[in-house]
């Protein structure tokens, strides 16, 4: 099953390597990983999307907690949460595709952020599923390039990951 892990870790050189090394060394999956500093510059917040059985997810969480630089780990799937991912997708926009791509962007509440005679670049935000749905919905042949950030997640309401 797909899980979203939120990790608070020391913003130190090598901390990211430790997390990534742990996943590869123990044969865990990383579907996506995103990391950046928080409002406290000494801390980084990482979101890892992974999948595995409950036992595997439990081991991943324990192993992450064991890393000296990891301050806190939560599995967002344990309760209500919000997930967002950003995708920039460059599509061919010529002939009848030009109008069609504009329409598709509107339907998915995307924004066209760069326009040339032959291309649009569309910015799309949402759950990873929504971004997948967009890719499925458009003709593969018109997609020139996609770049995705990987999912970021946060707990709903009063559920807060902080020191």
């Amino acid at each position, binding site marked *: 099953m797909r899980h979203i892990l939120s990790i608070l870790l020391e913003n130190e050189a*090598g901390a990211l390597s*430790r997390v990534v090394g742990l996943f590869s060394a123990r044969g865990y999956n990383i579907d996506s990983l995103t990391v950046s500093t928080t409002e406290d510059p000494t801390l980084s917040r990482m979101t890892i999307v992974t999948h595995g059985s409950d036992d595997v997810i439990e*081991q991943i969480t*324990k192993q992450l907690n*064991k890393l*000296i630089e990891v*301050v806190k780990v939560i599995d967002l799937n344990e309760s209500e949460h919000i997930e967002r991912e950003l995708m920039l997708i460059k599509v061919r926009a010529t002939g009848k595709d030009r109008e069609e791509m504009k329409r598709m962007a509107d339907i998915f509440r995307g924004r066209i952020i760069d326009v040339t005679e032959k291309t649009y670049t569309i910015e799309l935000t949402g759950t990873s599923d929504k971004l997948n749905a967009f890719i499925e919905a458009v003709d593969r042949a018109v997609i020139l390039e996609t770049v995705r950030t990987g999912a970021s997640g946060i707990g709903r309401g009063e559920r807060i990951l902080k*020191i």
Partner: protein
Amino acid sequence: MQISGAEIVVRSLQEEGVEFVFGYPGGAVLEIYDAIFKQSAFKHVLVRHEQAAVHAADAYSRSSDKVGVALVTSGPGATNAITGIATAYLDSIPMVIITGQVPTPAIGLDAFQEVDTVGISRPCVKHNFLVKDIAELASTIKKAFYVAKTGRPGPVLVDVPKDVQQALAEFHYPDSVSVRSYVPVTRGHPGQIKKAVNLLLEAKRPYVYVGGGAVLGGASDEVRELVRSLGLPCTNTLMGLGAFPGDDRLNLGMLGMHGTYEANMAMQNCDVLIAIGARFDDRVISVPSKFTAVPKKIVHIDVDPSSIAKRVKVDVPIVGDVKLVLREMLDLLKQTPQRIDADALASWWKQIDDWRAPNSLKYTFSDELIKPQYVVETLYEVTGGKAIITSDVGQHQMWAAQYYKFAEPKQWLNSGGLGTMGVGLPYAMGAQLANPNAQVACITGEASIQMNIQELSTCRQYHIPVKIVNLNNRYLGMVRQWQEIFYGNRYSESYMDALPDFVKLAEAYGHVGFKVEKPSDVEGVLREAFSAKLKERLVFLDFLTDQSENVYPMVGNGKGLDEMDLPAHMRDNGGNAGERDYGNLS
């Protein structure tokens, strides 16, 4: 007053009360070696290979309550140290390794003797640091010692670039250190402890399974009290030997791949298992699904939450310092009016005694060929069971574990997790330096000993009088045994040809050597080696042993604990070597 980074390293080690530093100089640590030259608070032991420096520091730690320290240079110094670091990591040994690094401006430029030490060591250390700022040098070393010895212990590496060693700063060694992201659990959860006690008191077939965590956690007294107060059967893992005395009737011996019949059968058939600082690894329980085929309730006490439910699901996990948790369990047992079911326990013991009766460690003594088991048994008698024993890896390691009945924790030093051949001699060095008055013997084989044989020179330089018991069967014995059993007697590259004359070799290094070829000479030579006359000398005892001897019992690949391959006298077919029975012999 400002002092150099190199002096800060030395002063920090002094502040930590370090007694010995095991190391090897080189370009990137010349500054630190210069600072060592100017001090006398700790001694430096110059090994002959960096791997041995780490092993010796590891053994110093294993055989005492202190943190071992190794010091090596950058590049090849660091890579040579890696095997030693991984060995310590797999067995959770607290130690600090200081490595030199090329100057910070040269990092990443493929400088001479540059390697990404922090990167290479990352998967086999508890933690590591690259110190880029001299202002953080002292506090980093303080943190390194703190992290190494707290929680589940482990090796911590500090990489110090040469320019940081040369820079100047004021020296302040912090009294204490706290790391907000590292807060090891100490006390167990009271509710869980209560559940564990209740489960134990309701048991019909209880069993106590004691691992290396009980040794590392200093919980031997509590283990003994728990086992003896209730008269429970118990077993020690390879790493736990000595936590409960090997010669006590309540101890069923070591369990696992080469455990005794009774220890493994009790493990398989118990109904309540108390696991103390043990991790249900593959060499202990073999296949998890076969182990859990007989339903049992499991209490698992461990300081490391990730050790719990890793291979086997447990009913009562208790995360905490094993000593503190056991102490609370003992207090609770005293307050609880409930008593364990004495009749059930008596019939459980009767079953165990039936398993024990045939003596699965019995071997056939020979007048002509030296049996390796006989050498270990005789060593046990000659040393009064009081020696610190180190071993390498292979058949001799298993015979040492089976036949030397360790009475105390920290008396048995071996590479249980990583299984590193070549640890035996450097382990003996570190143990002897930590315990100058103890008798230290290294039980090894002709293959393992050659992996760090150069340390005979170090032993000469520092007058380290260990006794080397070489069980020389001219084979990589455990490899040969597996080839015999699983590979149709195809002994691929397991014969050790062109062996040196070990007696002459020992003499060339300035030591004493004996070659022993007859069983009737074994005891006399051992007595001589441990006599007052040779007390100050390293003695190399080369025993030419029976080449065909195998380690039994044995839990083969993919077999359950109750599917042991047994010694000849316990086999249904009377021990025809050609038709060994791998079936369920229970």
